[in-house]
């Protein structure tokens, strides 16, 4: 692509990136400790969980849907996997089972939406409550802990001096960007979200891919749950509350339209980092968590306001 086209296609991401850099500069000025390698890795590590969930939501939102059940799936898949770990099932097998469980929950959402013709909001609202209740029933409301040391490596280990969760996050984003830009699945998500009727008449297997995208979203929630369980060294049935809102926020700050049909995971990664940096910086500055919520809410609104202001066609 020519530079001009690059700018029109990725202009929004440059804008979000500029926002992130300004934010970092301000925090650096206010507290020198912010811009140390250890703190930045810390931010990346804290961002990883939200960032991984937000990839799934970005896919779903591009396809023209929404998924409210991700937080509950984080909890349910987490306790299922943790119970297997506790019973000395080999770590890779237990992780696979947890991922498969999340994928299954997501597929159930997808089937209800594409074949049951439920609005995504309703189907995933139902799943949000059912998966939450399911996790509580499964554990009797108690946390599950006591794992093999090898499992903890997922939270504490490093690859080439980079914490494992950060490596996982970057790998997920690399794969997701590739899938979105260079596979039929990715292309169909944009087509479905942009104009479902035209997609059907162009021979796009819309119902199959719509089911699949919720499955993928469930799978990524379960992957986030693996990272969370390793970090806390315990799985809790009440984990992941409000995670869907953080993930939607990261997606929206990253420039993906809630109307569907446009968006990017690169934007979402920057969006998730903005939220992570903001939390971290406010903590370093000793701002109370109550004030933090107000600030984060304001940032979401500001991001979208700026977006609409730039997009609005000139008279």
């Amino acid at each position, binding site marked *: *692509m*020519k530079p001009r*086209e690059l700018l029109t*296609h990725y202009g929004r991401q440059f804008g979000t990136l500029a926002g992130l850099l300004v934010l970092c500069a301000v925090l650096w000025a206010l507290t020198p400790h912010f811009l140390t390698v250890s703190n930045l890795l810390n931010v990346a590590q804290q961002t990883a969980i939200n960032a991984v969930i937000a990839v799934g939501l970005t896919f779903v939102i591009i396809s023209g849907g929404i998924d409210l059940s991700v937080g509950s799936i984080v909890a349910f898949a987490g306790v299922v996997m943790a119970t297997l770990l506790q019973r000395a099932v080999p770590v890779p097998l237990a992780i696979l089972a947890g991922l498969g469980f999340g994928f299954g929950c997501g597929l159930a959402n997808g089937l209800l939406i594409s074949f049951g013709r439920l609005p995504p909001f309703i189907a995933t609202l139902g799943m949000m409550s059912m998966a939450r209740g399911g996790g509580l029933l499964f554990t009797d409301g108690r946390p599950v802990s006591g794992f093999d040391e090898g499992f903890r490596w997922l939270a504490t280990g490093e690859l080439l001096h980079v914490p494992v969760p950060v490596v996982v996050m970057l790998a997920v984003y690399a794969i997701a960007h590739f899938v979105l*830009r*260079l*596979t*039929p*699945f990715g*292309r*169909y998500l*944009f*087509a479905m979200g*942009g*104009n479902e*009727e*035209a*997609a*059907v*008449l*162009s*021979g*796009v*297997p819309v119902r199959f891919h719509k089911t699949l995208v919720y499955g993928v979203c469930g799978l990524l929630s379960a992957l986030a749950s693996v990272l969370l369980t390793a970090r806390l060294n315990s799985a809790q049935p009440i984990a992941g509350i409000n995670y869907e809102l953080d993930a939607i926020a990261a997606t929206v700050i990253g420039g993906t339209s809630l109307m569907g*049909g*446009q968006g990017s995971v690169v934007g979402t990664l920057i969006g998730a980092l903005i939220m992570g940096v903001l939390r971290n910086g406010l903590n370093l500055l000793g701002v109370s968590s109550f004030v933090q919520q107000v600030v984060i809410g304001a940032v979401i609104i500001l991001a979208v306001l700026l977006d609409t202001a730039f997009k609005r066609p000139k*008279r």
Partner: protein
Amino acid sequence: MSIPPVLTLRGIRKAYPGVVALDGVDLTLQAGEVHVLLGENGAGKSTLMKVISGAVARDAGEILLDGAPVELRGPRHAQSLGLGIIYQEFNLIPHLSAGENIFLGREPRRAAGVIDQATLLDRAQQLLNNLGVAIDARTAVSRLSVAQQQMVEVAKALSLNARVLIMDEPTSALTEQEIRELFAAIERLKARGVALVYISHRMEELFAIGDRVTVLRDGRHVGTRLIRDTSLPELVRLMVGRDLKEQFPKQAAGAGDEALRVEGLSRAGLLHDVSFTLRRGEVVGIAGLMGSGRTELARAIFGADRLDAGKIFVRGHEQVIASPRAAIALGLGFLTEDRKHQGLVLGLSVQENTCLPSVSVFSRFGVMQPAREASATAQRIADLRIKTPGPHQRVFNLSGGNQQKVVLGKWLTTDADILIFDEPTRGIDVGAKVEIYQLINQLAARGAAILMISSELPEILGMSDRILVMQAGRLAAEFSAADATQEKILAAALGRAGLSAA
């Protein structure tokens, strides 16, 4: 003329980044005239309309209302000055009544700020009656026909005391009868001194309803004529800047083997026992009134809607076509009647749209091959002469004719050889029409089989080798190109319903 014109535009200029949409355009509107605005897609008609209706601010030039300069600050301001516009896509709220739509945002109120529903309905009803249309102001808009909805739009403009009314392609979705009613309403508006700007691509309408015509080309004013002093060839020459040799460059192609045969297609309430055969190299036209089942037939063959009964044979073999995907795999292509809602994903690029039905062809081991997509798209842009800054341009930004070419490009890319065209030239200009006709001929000459649905009888007569006429979900008649006349087709399309109504 001694009285100043209602509206005068002088030297209007509007540039967008990269394009000059309007360059020194003049236009005068007299009270009580129908002023036709003609031009190919992209000639600047829509921009000019947006300037008059206040939706777009001009870069240079003057606007005079009753001889006095005005500055339009926005659509609401233009409306308050009596400049109204009726877009092709209506701005009505389906679940509100006709009356509520007419006074939306300006509801008459009682003292306490409560809406005075009785007055609202009274005044709305009076407006509708004055237009001479039989619409109850209490009916929900969703229950009105397209033609009636249009009249609600007209009434809404009149409720704002519109003195200039712009109508953009007002007849594109109307039946012959409804067009006559619209023209009657236009005559009443003229009698009341309203100046109308009328945009249409149907040349025969211009001569029926217009008083003067202004032609735009590439954003410039190329001429204004009195309708009674001009002719179709002159207008076409002004629009395209050259003589079009023939409007319908029909080449008779020798019909070959059977490509598509359908037997007894039925769908409750919509299609009844439809059977016909389509051969390679043949263009079969399907005529009929709106709602006669033409589009339903196309959708059923293409697997978009379920059939209750009937068989479909593709190249002699019976096939069950359960989805559009299955139809595409069999070499079928379907150019839908509504390109914005069914034909294109407007937010995606020319390339992404062109390749959408071929995504599985352009991917290997689950990975897309952008180089192959790019070369196919470049080929389509060149062959179809699609005017676009590049393959990555969003189709949203293209003109209607170019959007239609992108839809065509989709099916050329799949190499479809059984093509169903539903209103292939609706809403596109004369130049692009001829290009599309030439393309249909080329495809037929290469052995493609083409089913062409159209509401424009001259197009059906000009392009088809055979003509099928549908009426109330049935095939009512079949004519060879040599036998068919407008009268015979219309008589068959009206069927018994037409006879009893007469």
